[in-house]
């Protein structure tokens, strides 16, 4: 079920098991039958930790979604609320409880705060006069959720917004706590590097927490050699660009949520033979995407242009494998063939799925609009005409293209030009407000606060220097057989990943100048290991680095890091952790004011 978590360099299943154990312990604390009332946002992340079967084993009979009014009837002894510590949710719970009491004989109420209990929420419950109704108020510390063999995410949606807009560092506190949990399971991480204000803050908290635990020394041999903390605002450019890896594109177009993607059903319905097109399923097709699927693991990180070739190669292999049945003469050979059948059939259906997805994606990538958009992006990234009003953007606004697309492009231009000239900026702003409505002035202000959209200050544009020093643009990116991380954006090498790469070799000292141009301090800390835990490295053994992106990471960046891990001479393997898996679209959304009214 979660075997793919243990294949990687670091067995992340340990983390998942620890989380499951804690969940079981809590469930067992409430004796008798239970119904769980879910904060809807939590169901996705929880699905990665525990399936319904586990809950069922612990006498969970019903599950509801948290909403106002009366709780649906259920003949259970306990009602457990699984909620994030949000004040608005507390009000709903209070409403639930008030309408509950009258109709039923006593049922026990419990609250499980995820990931942490909060004084403020309890205070609110108290004000509402329902705090006393709860038998148990507990917290379920679920910070880092394993997504894949090398990927952890906190799925803390508002992390970037909170840190950079609202100056609320709760997510950083959770990050630090999560890293402490990780260290408790995988050993103290001896080296910590970081770049950015938030990174500095997290590192400080970690060191402080370590002092708090002093004395209870961790006797686990460290699995990670290095921790790299990176602020998202060090590299604002990368998430704005359109990802061009297979997985990245799926995310850009359809959105991957907690490892699942929902796809339009038409393409998949046709696959079923004999049914014809009579009853087209209207439900979107839901697919789980992770490295458990062999084919997906292979193609997910490829540039989309290389996916077609990979799929056709795979198709040939599979059909060749099926052809082998004709060669199978003896009973033994046939038996062997039959024993491989389930695996082959799985591979075939997986191939069929991905061929369909690739077709869907290809329809979009081959469209003119996509191409034009990409051209403008690449112009910006190479520094062409970034100081003028871009005609494509102008046209797009005029055609009232989706606002998010416009914002992504404008922000990109601003970032690549280290701020826009006041005149250009004002022009864009005016155009946007007049076309899309004045309510967006708040969004624009947010983008300015976050540093995505800003007027150029006196200092000269330093983006070209950064680009040249870190080789952010590679003219001859090889998409089929990549030799550099720039393949993930077909030319642009993500800044964040370049920093990671340089840190591994030759070290940050070589790029001091550039680091100074990027926002926030860079630093290095060491954590003392108990004697006897110093690793004796075998010849040729790779080092392991945990890269933590504070404020989110894109699939393309993950692909680039995986590419680095696989490079033979890199000598480094990367495990990726983040507050949230993002793409340009949902990232923009999180920064928009009143995002719910903008979703269409």
């Amino acid at each position: 079920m979660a075997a793919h978590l243990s294949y990687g360099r670091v067995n992340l299943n340990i983390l998942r098991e620890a989380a499951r154990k804690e969940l079981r312990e809590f469930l067992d604390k409430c004796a008798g039958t239970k119904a769980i009332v879910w904060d809807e946002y939590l169901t996705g992340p929880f699905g990665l930790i525990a399936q319904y079967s586990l809950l069922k084993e612990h006498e969970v009979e019903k599950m509801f979604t948290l909403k106002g009014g009366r709780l649906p009837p259920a003949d259970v002894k306990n009602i457990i609320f699984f909620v994030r510590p949000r004040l608005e949710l507390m009000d709903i719970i209070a409403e639930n409880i008030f309408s509950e009491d009258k109709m039923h004989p006593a049922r026990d109420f419990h609250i499980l705060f995820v990931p942490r209990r909060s004084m403020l929420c309890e205070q609110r419950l108290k004000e509402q006069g329902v705090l006393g109704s709860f038998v148990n108020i507990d917290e379920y510390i679920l910070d880092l959720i394993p997504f894949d063999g090398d990927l952890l995410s906190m799925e803390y949606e508002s992390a970037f917004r909170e840190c950079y807009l609202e100056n609320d560092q709760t997510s950083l506190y959770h990050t630090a706590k999560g890293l402490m949990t990780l260290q408790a399971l995988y050993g103290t991480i001896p080296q910590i590097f970081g770049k950015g204000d938030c990174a500095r803050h997290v590192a400080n908290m970690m060191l402080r927490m370590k002092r708090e635990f002093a004395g209870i020394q961790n006797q686990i041999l460290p699995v990670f050699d290095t921790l790299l903390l990176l602020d998202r605002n060090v590299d604002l450019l990368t998430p704005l660009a359109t990802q061009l890896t297979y997985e990245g594109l799926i995310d850009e177009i359809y959105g991957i949520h907690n490892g699942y993607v929902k796809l339009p059903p038409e393409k998949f319905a046709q696959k079923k033979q004999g049914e014809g097109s009579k009853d087209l399923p209207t439900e979107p097709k839901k697919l789980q995407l992770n490295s458990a699927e062999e084919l997906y693991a292979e193609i997910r990180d490829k540039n989309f242009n290389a996916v077609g070739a990979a799929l056709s190669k795979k198709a040939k292999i599979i059909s060749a494998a099926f052809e082998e049945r004709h060669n199978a003469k003896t009973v033994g050979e046939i038996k062997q063939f039959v024993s491989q059948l389930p695996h082959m059939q799985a591979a075939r259906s997986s191939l069929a799925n991905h061929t369909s997805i690739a077709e869907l994606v290809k329809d979009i990538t081959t469209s003119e609009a996509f191409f034009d958009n990409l051209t403008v992006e690449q112009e910006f990234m190479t520094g062409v005409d970034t100081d003028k009003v871009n005609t494509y953007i102008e046209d797009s606004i005029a055609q009232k293209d989706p606002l998010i697309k416009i914002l992504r492009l404008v922000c990109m231009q601003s970032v690549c030009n280290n701020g826009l000239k006041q005149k250009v900026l004002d022009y864009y702003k005016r155009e946007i407000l007049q076309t899309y409505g004045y309510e967006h002035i708040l969004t624009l202000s947010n983008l300015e606060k976050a540093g995505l959209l800003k007027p150029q200050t006196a200092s000269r544009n330093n983006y070209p220097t950064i680009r040249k020093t870190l080789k952010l643009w590679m003219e001859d990116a090889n998409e089929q057989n990549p030799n550099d991380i720039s393949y993930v954006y077909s030319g642009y090498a993500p800044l964040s990943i370049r920093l990671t790469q340089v840190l591994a070799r030759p070290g940050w000292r070589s790029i001091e100048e550039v680091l100074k141009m990027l926002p926030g301090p860079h630093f290095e800390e060491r954590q003392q290991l108990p004697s006897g835990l110093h690793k004796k490295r075998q010849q040729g053994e790779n080092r392991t680095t945990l890269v933590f992106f504070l404020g989110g990471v894109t699939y393309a960046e993950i692909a680039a890091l995986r590419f680095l891990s696989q490079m033979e001479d890199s000598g480094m393997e990367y495990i990726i952790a983040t507050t949230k898996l993002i793409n340009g679209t949902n990232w923009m959304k999180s920064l928009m004011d009143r995002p719910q009214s903008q979703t269409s």
Partner: protein
Amino acid sequence: MSTDCCLPTEEEEETGRGGAALAASADSSAVIILSSCGSVRFGSGIRTSRPNPSLLFLSMAFITANWNPLGDAFYRKTELYEMFWSLRDGLGDSLVAAAPYGGPIALLREPLRRSTSSRPQLDIYSASGVSITSFPWKSGPVVHLGWSVNDELLCVQEDGTVLIYDLFGTFKRHFSMGQEVVQSQVLEAKVFHSPYGTGVAIVTGSSRFTLATNIEDLKLRRLPEVPGLQGKPSCWVVLTQDRQTKVLVSSGAELYVLDNTSCTAVYPPGLSPQAGSIVHMAVSFSYKYLALFTEAGHLWTGLSNLQERLSEVDIKRTAPPTQMVWCRRPRSQQPSVVLMWDRLLLVVGACNDTIQFPMEERSVLVGELDGVRIIAPCSQELLQEVPLVCQDIFKIASMAPGALLLEAHREYEKSSQKADEYLREIKEQDVLGDAVRQCVEAAAHEYDPDTQKALMRAASFGKCFLTDFSPEQFVVTCRELRVLNAVRDSSVGMPLTHTQFKQMTLQVLIDRLVYRQFYPLTMEVCRYLKIPDYQGVSRVLKHWASCKVQQKDLTDEAIARAVCSKVGDCPGVSYSDIAAKAYECGRPELAIKLLDYEARSGEQVPLLLKMKRSQLALSKAVESGDTDLVYTVVTYLKNEMNRGDFFMTLRNQPVALSLYRQVGSAEPEGVGGPGW
């Protein structure tokens, strides 16, 4: 004693007799043993080449010199200390309370003196008589003194007030045993230990009993009336049975058990009718056994639930003893009762056997888990049954494996080939492992370091000839003995036996040492026994620091520095606890200095708020990054400060301000919202 033990060679026989003579001169009672053993030995046949146990007798004579037979067991009286104190008037007309487990001794002279001109003096000494504190008693007349399980002194006054002092004579608190006692007065009181803690029982002038089973959680229970009882009962004890506390009281010819609701007459099974009424009684340390002394001089012993009789002995003394105490040990062979009169100490075993010791001065008996401590004005002795393993090793002409091993080692030290003979003898029987174990175990029970050493060396010697013998017991015993010898030292004065030590556990010992402020010693003990820091050294440092901040004569700066340099980053020491203590002692500045060292902000903040250092609390909370903590402070400040100050405070803390704005925006309008 084995009959096949052999006749010594001429030479050895001589030395053997020399030893006997020496022993005889040392203590007259020892002669009996020697002669009886001697007869067996000399009566047996000759087998020359066998090892000779008589040598044991030579050197061990000193050890067995103070052994007295009682039935088939032996009792020994060992001197623990020559007391440091110098009491002018002895222990006469003083109230004395000595805590078990080598606890402190409290002494109140002339407790009932009422004149205000010369107040009685209350002294607290360590068990070795080192004065801990001394102060004049200013409250009312005291009826009884007793020690609680936490080494607190309970003083029961005539008017029913119980005052509690700590070891250093600092008044802690007081409570009353009931309003009606103020008129009727306390006639007698007893402090007892129950599974719930320390209790107090009193009998009042109106012949009613009142009990408090746990002074920490005071619940007074007035027991039912005893029929026909007027004035003071002739004797009574508190029993703890089946988690119930009862009082056994003798009134006239009757014996009653008082529990919460009823008063039941009981009859000790098998008590002879001519014994008469009961005039003295005693329960054992474990509350399991009861001894009754009757008018006619009969001593009845039995189970304290009065279901079974152990024995009844006619002592032939009708005067009631001044004190009567059980003397037994876990797995006792021959439990006994120790009775004390002015000039005589009588040990009466269940087998009708008795031992008599003359007494020179008035003494006090303290019942222990495995014996009785006899505190006299100038010395302190321990009377106990000799543990079986010590008997096996030291008993004259013993052929127990341990005895042979000890002898083998002695010969080895003398470079005599006889060592080999003894060793062979043990190995032939294949009991070398037992021999080593015996020696180690016996060493634990011995009080004299030289004897301990001799036994441990023998054990270590024997261990060399064993291939797969676990050294665990040996090592542990060595360590424990070193610790025990250190705390027995008269400057510390905790005469703990190994059995008591095992019962009270190391943790408690450390706590008690810390409580008595033997910080360096305790640190040494913790380090020596390799106790994990957070259980050992950290606890000591924490206590030390809390004590240090109370030193009035040092500046805040000096104390903070001293505490920090000692405690450093020692795990598990909470600076906020120390700071809280400093704050309690009225030194807020020191508390703030100490709080700076606290790593856990969650701990710093509440204390800072308590000290009204809200600005500092807020900045610490922000520093910690724990937003919940920031909210806590903000909410607190909002309630504490006026609006203006509150917002000015927030202005300086942008993080706190932005958090507050979020709460404000999430709150329904008008209900305490920030108002913008």
